[in-house]
């Protein structure tokens, strides 16, 4: 049982978390934050292992991992 919270205002749509999540839990969304970025969001929470890789790879410290 794990999940991640994405600080949408901090997200810059770089997609690194999406690339590195081996579980494919993350996607770039279609909502825009106030800086104009389509921030990413967790897609299938169920798969998330809480491994923390996404947070590690996020250059903007936009991801909190809960487990």
């Amino acid at each position, binding site marked *: 049982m794990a999940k991640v919270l994405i600080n949408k205002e901090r997200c810059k749509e770089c997609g690194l978390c999406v690339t590195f999540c081996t579980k494919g839990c993350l996607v770039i969304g279609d909502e*825009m934050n*106030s*800086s*104009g970025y389509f921030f990413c969001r967790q897609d299938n929470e169920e798969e998330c292992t809480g491994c923390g890789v996404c947070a590690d790879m996020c250059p903007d410290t936009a991801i909190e991992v809960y487990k």
Partner: protein
Amino acid sequence: MINDVFIAGDGGQGILLIGNIIAEAALAEGREVTFLPSYGVEMRGGNANCTVVMSDLPVGSPAVTTPQAMITMSTKAFRLYEGKVLPDGLLIVNGSLVPASMMTRKDVILEAHPFNEMAAEMGNTRLANMIALGLYVGRTGAVKVESIEEGMAAALSERNRKFIPKNMEAIGKGLELCNNGK
């Protein structure tokens, strides 16, 4: 007679290109012209903007505090600069990205259109800037449409000149927008 315009948006949106085209067009008309782009840290995170001043007399300052016209192609740009346009000035906004709720100024002539979608309809979202340019030309008459074509030839590198017809088509779309009124 002085015309000035401030254009802002994201790096990939061809902001500097349309500024250059306007400047070259004015030059082709024999006017004095300056083009001043953003540079350095201003560009970090992919911001881009430029100011074009066209005049019958030598241009004093290429920097304009309160431009007569403004084109904002991104949310960020809109948020940052909206306040600067001259009262009663022309504010062209990329409605595809800037939500209508953000547009609160009542003292300007607002032209918000979904340039991205319109461009996508034409087969290439990259044409959004050209549509905006057409709208600007139509609304202000700062330069003639024919000059724009001349300016485009000067502003584009050899190998990009092939895009001129398509660009002019997009500009046509922009002109249409203003012929149709708001």
